[in-house]
């Protein structure tokens, strides 16, 4: 029995299990042709209000559904149910973020082929969700005008892991003396080139941007998928 000390090479991502689950989800979403968008922000930024409006805008012409994460309650799911689209709640209990496996379990029984858009509302938290891939195609990070313009500088990883920023509660901008330019500078600093959209779920300002934006994204996504399918038979690594 040798007790010699030796060094073994490993090279494995610590969250390998989540990554494997997220990749499998992404493949399922691609196969089904459903465009998946996740929403991250601090608690109280207005993810649910924004999502409620989005679902309402999209449901007339598209098949939409949402899964929402919350530590303890199903309040958000009940609010969203008013939009009359399929909603599932993920109660994370102790976990401060969603993981790919939780999303997979929440989707059980849904036919993804029957959907155009699926939204995933993460738990309100600007730290932990940045580490976990959920298989989404687009990650939106939300920031409200009441939070302070330097928030992106305080939480670079979440802004960096996101694809687009949404500034919410823009109707309150003047009341709280929100400095738009400073907020945009902070976002640009941590994620150069990131698109920023200003919205108010309450007044509807900026909301008309989204239906055509998502429709365009969906069309691109399905086109890309068709291109991949026509290359079927060619191994992945080529």
């Amino acid at each position: 029995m040798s007790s010699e000390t030796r060094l073994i090479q490993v090279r494995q991502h610590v969250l390998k299990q989540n990554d494997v689950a997220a990749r499998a989800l992404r493949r399922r979403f691609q196969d089904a042709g459903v465009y998946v968008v996740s929403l991250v922000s601090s608690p109280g930024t207005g993810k649910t209000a924004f999502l409620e409006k989005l679902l309402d805008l999209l449901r007339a012409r598209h098949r939409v559904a949402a899964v929402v994460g919350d530590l303890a309650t199903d309040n958000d799911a009940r609010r969203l149910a008013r939009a009359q689209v399929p909603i599932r709640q993920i109660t994370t209990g102790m976990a401060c973020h969603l993981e790919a496996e939780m999303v997979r379990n929440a989707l059980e029984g849904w036919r993804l082929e029957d959907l155009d858009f699926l939204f995933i509302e993460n738990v309100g938290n600007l730290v932990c969700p940045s580490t976990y891939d959920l298989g989404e195609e687009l990650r939106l990070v939300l920031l409200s005008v009441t939070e302070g313009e330097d928030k992106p500088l305080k939480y670079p990883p979440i802004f960096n892991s996101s694809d687009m920023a949404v500034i919410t509660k823009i109707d309150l901008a003047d009341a709280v003396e929100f400095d738009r330019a400073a907020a945009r500078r902070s976002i640009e600093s941590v994620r150069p080139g990131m698109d920023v959209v200003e919205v108010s779920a309450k007044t509807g300002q900026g909301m008309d941007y989204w239906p055509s934006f998502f429709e365009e994204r969906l069309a691109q996504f399905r086109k890309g998928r068709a291109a991949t399918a026509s290359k079927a038979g060619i191994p992945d690594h080529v």
Partner: protein
Amino acid sequence: MHELSIALSLLDLVAEEAERQGADRVLEIHLKLGPLSGVVKEALLGSFELARENTPFAETQLVIEDVPVRVLCPTCRTTRTVVSIQELCCEECGTPTPDVVSGRDLEVVALEVQ
């Protein structure tokens, strides 16, 4: 604060790898950690101490190598470090770029075992 669950995932991975390699003891875990991983080094070290208690890894040390954020600078046309994670600009020429090539790392690179 998700470092405890990260530390538990880390120990699962290490246990699996140690068994596969037929190692009796794991002396050190070498981990690469980037500031854009969303994992805080000090919190992870603290959580690791908690997570290893009453496990076969109670004596195992976690050695963290900090990986700097590097980007592909479109002006210098090469990989460069950035000013800071708050300012994703090439440290040499100041060009801002989102093109991160390293710094999201959260990877076990090696184990020192017996």
